[in-house]
């Protein structure tokens, strides 16, 4: 005998958990299916948690969620081979509650989130892979088929929160195969060290954390960035570049990470730590233009599966949670109004997204991927030039400052030509506008 639910959520990452939680809280009969051994066992993130998206669902999350440190300082480093130039922003204001950003360890956080989903009343079944979507004679999605005996399960609506690869959506022809230029491959390590050492090294207190964004020659000219986050007693360090770039350069991600860790400005930060975890994951970074169709008859797509990642600001899990929540709210509205889960009715989800920061932000940076793809000087020439300029100005050698300025300017002109410089400035301005 097959079971029937109001909704089936496929996947137990941030978007799936947000959807399942919101649906269950509203009293719907929800089944969440996760292929991993437990919720979160397939997930990888830096990880920074932006409080807002979670707070809208679970206002008191701070009381029980496993949080590492709240961020009080943001560093942005542009690296050359031997140096970096950057900005640090630190504010006592970030020490005022409620805090806005936290470092988290996803394995723990996801377990907590899944517990909340279960408390809310959703039935969570792990180690079960959805192999295909069930359709009726009008091609509407009416449920799922899983990889177990007796695995035909029906539902009014299926929410696909099955992650960046979204094998299910692809199999159902909801979106085409991912293009290597639209996904980044990121690798990450966690290095453990005593809490006191870490706090002293980063000049932070018991609960305070630091974020370092890394940019420049560390990616060997590939489009991508690195990061370093402080957890309670560990450091998460990672780097991600577009898959197409790894392919063209024939570089391996771990070699790139090794190289980054050996950088003279980064190495001392990790000294004495013990590497305990190595993970890798794809990140959908195609931006606004790569968003697939996200609603249909009986189905919705949320999270990474819908390309909802803001690569410029390194935001993803908050977009995931927000899309999950908005999809769920759409379903709840239809259910309450007694409307069918047709594509036309569920289109309300798209409207909600358009009105939210999710689509507004992605739209704002829609040209960014193309610009960076075709203008590699941003990852190589400029980092080198600004570092050299700083070096030149700080190196006291009897040459007057005016001459140094002239030399710096001509070095820029030589590398990029006046026309190129102005063009780059214009492109960046357009992209960020």
């Amino acid at each position, binding site marked *: 005998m097959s079971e029937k639910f109001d909704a089936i959520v496929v996947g137990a990452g941030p978007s799936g958990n947000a959807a399942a939680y919101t649906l269950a809280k509203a009293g719907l009969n929800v089944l969440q299916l996760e292929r991993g051994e437990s919720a979160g066992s397939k997930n990888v993130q830096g990880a920074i948690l932006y409080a807002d998206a979670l707070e809208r669902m679970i206002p008191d999350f701070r009381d029980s969620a496993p949080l590492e440190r709240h961020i009080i300082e943001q560093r942005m480093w542009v690296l050359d081979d031997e140096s970096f130039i950057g900005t640090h922003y630190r504010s006592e204001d970030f020490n005022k509650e409620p805090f806005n950003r936290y470092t988290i360890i996803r394995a723990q956080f996801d377990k907590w989130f899944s517990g909340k989903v279960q408390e809310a009343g959703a039935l969570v079944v792990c180690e079960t892979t959805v192999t295909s979507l069930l359709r009726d004679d009008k091609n509407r999605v009416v449920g799922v088929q899983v990889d*177990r005996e007796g695995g035909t399960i029906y539902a009014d609506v299926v929410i696909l929160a099955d992650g960046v690869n979204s094998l299910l959506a692809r199999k159902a022809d909801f979106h085409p195969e991912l293009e290597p230029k639209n996904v980044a491959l990121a690798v990450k390590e966690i290095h453990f060290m005593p809490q006191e050492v870490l706090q002293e090294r980063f000049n932070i207190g018991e609960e305070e954390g630091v974020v370092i964004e890394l940019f420049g020659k560390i990616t060997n000219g590939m489009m991508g960035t690195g990061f370093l986050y402080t957890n309670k007693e560990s450091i998460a360090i990672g780097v991600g570049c577009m898959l197409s770039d790894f392919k063209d350069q024939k570089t391996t991600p771990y070699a790139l990470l090794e190289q980054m860790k050996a950088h003279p400005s980064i190495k001392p930060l990790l000294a004495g730590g013990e590497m305990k975890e190595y993970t890798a994951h794809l990140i959908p970074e195609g931006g606004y233009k790569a968003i697939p169709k996200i609603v249909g008859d009986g189905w919705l797509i949320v999270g990474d599966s819908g390309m909802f990642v803001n690569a410029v600001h390194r935001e993803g899990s908050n977009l995931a949670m927000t899309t999950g929540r908005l999809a769920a709210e759409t379903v709840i509205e239809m259910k309450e109004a007694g409307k069918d889960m047709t594509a036309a009715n569920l289109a309300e989800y798209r409207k909600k997204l358009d009105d939210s920061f999710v689509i507004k932000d992605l739209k704002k940076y829609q040209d960014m991927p193309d610009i960076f793809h075709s203008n590699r000087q941003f990852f190589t020439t400029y980092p080198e030039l600004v570092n050299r300029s700083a070096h030149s100005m700080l190196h006291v050698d009897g040459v007057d400052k005016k001459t140094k300025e002239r030399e710096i300017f001509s070095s820029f002109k030589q590398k990029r030509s006046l026309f190129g410089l102005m063009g780059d400035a214009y492109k960046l301005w357009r992209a960020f506008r």
Partner: protein
Amino acid sequence: MHIVVCIKQVPDSAQIRVHPVTNTIMRQGVPAIINPYDLFALEEALRLKDKHGGTVTVLTMGPPQAEGALRKALSYGADDAILITDRAFAGADTLATSFALAAAIRQIRKNMPVDMVFTGKQTIDGDTAQVGPGVAKRLDFQLLTYVSKVSSVLPEQGQIVVERRAEGGVQLLKSKLPCLITILEGNNEMRFATMPNMFRAARHAVKVWDREAAGITDEDIVKIGLKGSPTVVSKVFAPTPHTEPAEMIEVESGHPKDIADTVLAKMFTRFPAVAKEIAKRA
């Protein structure tokens, strides 16, 4: 036919490491699994149930998280699950554990007679193989250890025939019921849970018993947990890894006989005891 399967949630020993400085076992972040040997016991019990009908109850003692192991056992097809958990059980060695499990099984029997108790041959974290026999003794059940296969069960006659691995062969043993059987690894493979069973496991209310519910009186409190455990772990240490470098042996002539002679001569110098032994036998 009612089979009680005792299982234990253990840290996945494949992922445990010893701290390089303090020599203590680092359990942090190590996933908990059902003791692999217990899965063979559970599968054997489920096969008997498939064949003869009846009920399979899984029982474990452990912290509240051990419920995860029971739920997994339910998904494979166990009918009921009982977790005995209490601060009073903490720090138990094999003696105290078998006392507590035996008490819980007596409680289970009050609702439904127990024909057999199955356990894995040992756990991968303790490696003692003592708890099964301890439970059998306390329940006054026939004990059958190292059983590779249950050949036949005749519940009406109260009889069971099993294959038991023994030195140099296999024993075919007939025993009366009730009995406790510790099952060997490798003779069956845990089934892939069906979707209806996954649903059932997710919804099933695991019975959680504290000390009293498990039938242990105030007066017996000294027989469980740390108080009931005469075993004292005086020291935990990691074995020193062998770091002797390999030695290159060069033989100029390159003739096989010369190579063999040189290698043997080297070995005999290095291990004189071996040389003596060989000389004695020659």
